[in-house]
């Protein structure tokens, strides 16, 4: 296994241009996700799925009064005319944009539960689906704690971000990271990215953005840390991310134990049933042929 590669998505410089979504689709020949006006700010692709491997979320933060000092444009004058002009309306405090992607978990549930080996861990420590193997059992879909992977209708197989595995094999960076105009999406050795992210978050906090926090960067979390982690400016759930995800297979041993217990109970129940009704009706004609153990 070579060095572990990953994504660091710094949402504080994301301009929501969606170049990542397009670059990803152009490279990976991902079909369009339908033409639906969702009226959810500028987001019309909704969420990650089989046909959207990068998804940009748009969160319009209504201003909470009193204006929080740290937010852009929230202080002093603007807060003033904001209130004047809006007749009680709080107006806009900020517009968060964030490019979501498969997290390539250290403990990846999709990979754990895949029965065919279609999902596998690459030499870059990323998690990739082999389309030539997947038989569309769909198990990985509900297994993912982030709701990333999904089965493509009609095609029948499961798809998700590969962190451009083929490009990495050629020493190229993933399409989304390469296209990203403001370098909000950074690709590189995970360890370096984590250091860079720590520095960035520190700086933001110094500049008066206490709400800045890293998401998925800790190796101690419920999935053992994400290969693709984020710098967020609000609670994860407002971005559609689980606040404290856990890899479902963590509890698998316990599950087997309970299932084993249930299996034994079942066996026991059957035995009891037969024992309790041992003295049954008159021996059937078959009764002549006793069991061989007699």
């Amino acid at each position, binding site marked *: 296994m070579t060095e572990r590669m990953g994504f660091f998505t710094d949402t504080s410089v994301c301009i929501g241009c969606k170049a990542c979504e397009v670059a990803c689709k152009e490279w990976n020949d991902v079909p369009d996700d339908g033409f639906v006006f969702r009226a959810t700010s500028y987001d019309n692709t909704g969420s990650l799925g089989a046909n959207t491997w990068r998804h940009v979320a748009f*969160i319009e933060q209504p201003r909470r009064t009193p204006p929080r000092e740290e937010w852009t444009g929230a202080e002093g004058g603007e807060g003033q005319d904001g209130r004047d002009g809006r007749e009680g309306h709080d107006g806009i405090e900020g517009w968060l944009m964030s490019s979501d992607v498969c997290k390539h978990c250290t403990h990846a549930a999709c990979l754990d539960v895949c029965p065919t080996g279609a999902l596998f861990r690459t030499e870059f420590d990323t998690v990739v689906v082999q389309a030539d193997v997947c038989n569309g059992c769909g198990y990985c879909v509900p297994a993912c704690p982030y709701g990333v992977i999904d089965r493509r209708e009609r095609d029948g197989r499961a798809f998700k971000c590969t962190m451009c595995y083929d490009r990495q094999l050629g020493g190229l960076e993933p399409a989304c990271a390469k296209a990203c105009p403001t370098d909000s999406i950074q690709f590189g050795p995970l360890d370096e990215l984590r250091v860079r992210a720590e520095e960035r978050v520190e700086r933001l906090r110094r500049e008066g953005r206490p709400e800045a926090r890293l998401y998925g960067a800790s190796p101690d979390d419920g999935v053992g840390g994400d290969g693709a982690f984020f710098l967020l400016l609000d609670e994860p759930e407002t971005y559609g991310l689980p606040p404290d995800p856990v890899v479902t297979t963590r509890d698998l041993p316990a599950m087997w134990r309970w299932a084993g217990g249930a299996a034994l109970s079942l066996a026991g129940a059957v035995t009891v049933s037969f024992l309790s009704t041992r003295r049954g009706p008159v021996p059937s004609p078959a009764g002549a042929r006793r069991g061989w153990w007699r």
Partner: protein
Amino acid sequence: MVPEAEFRSYYGQPIIKSPVWHEPHMPAYLYLGGLSGAASMMAAAARISGHDRLALTARLTAAAGATVGAGFLVAELGRPERFLNMLRVFKPTSPMSMGSWLLAAHSGLTALAATAALAPVLPASAATAVLRVPSVAAVLPVAGDAATMAAALTGPLMSTYTAVLLADTAVPVWHEAHRELPFLFAGSALASAGAAGMLTAPRAEAGPARAVAVLGAAVETVAGAVMERRLGMLGEPYQRGKAGGRMRTARALTVGGGLLAVVAGRSRVLTGLCGLALTAGALFTRFAVLEAGRASAADPRYTVVPQRRRLDAGNPASVPAPSR
């Protein structure tokens, strides 16, 4: 249930993906797998205890359940032609992988057991010629009995592994119910198998089947009740909406069937009703569980709130170091 204010989401969109499994495929497989498993256990017990008619029908039920169930499983695949890929890897971390190997073994065993049992009465034809090769004919009964006994080991697992299959996902009402689900399914499997036995075996031998049915109904009912209570807020999906309705129907049918089984006595009609009720109950349970899973996945509240509470309580989730 936390107040709305605490709970935030992205335009109310779900965080995890709903299971893509279709109806009736998945619930039908869950039912048939359970039925086959319990039935094979019953077949063994019956064989041992000399309820040979019951043993025969149980063998056939087990074989049929496994075969048809496997059919539903294949039909569920997005790429059915690739069903053999299920045996491509051996993966302890994947209940479905384990289940596939288990199903392969179990369906093989039950098929052999059934064939052996049927050999004497099968009409002579090219297809069955092999069964009348003297050497084959000689070992077949023994092999059949051996297969039956072996299936008694795979059977109970067949009936309960499906609970792990569901629990080992991010679907809140499945994952959090990983203690009770196996018992719910085990009970349901017993009830189904018992019902099948009552319906197929001659009255004279139906006694044990009736007992199995009653016990199954009891276990299923109790497990369900316990599960919903322990899940607390996460129990809602089992009580509300479509899933709730199915759950209640399942419970009524199971309880009713159970009671009927007790009093049915020698009445063919009552026995028939009872068997049908339990069978329907078992089916409804599986449909209800699947639907509850979908409902809990579709509402971000069931994903976010428990995790939020975990964080607020200061004990975030964690996992032991990489197993790789």
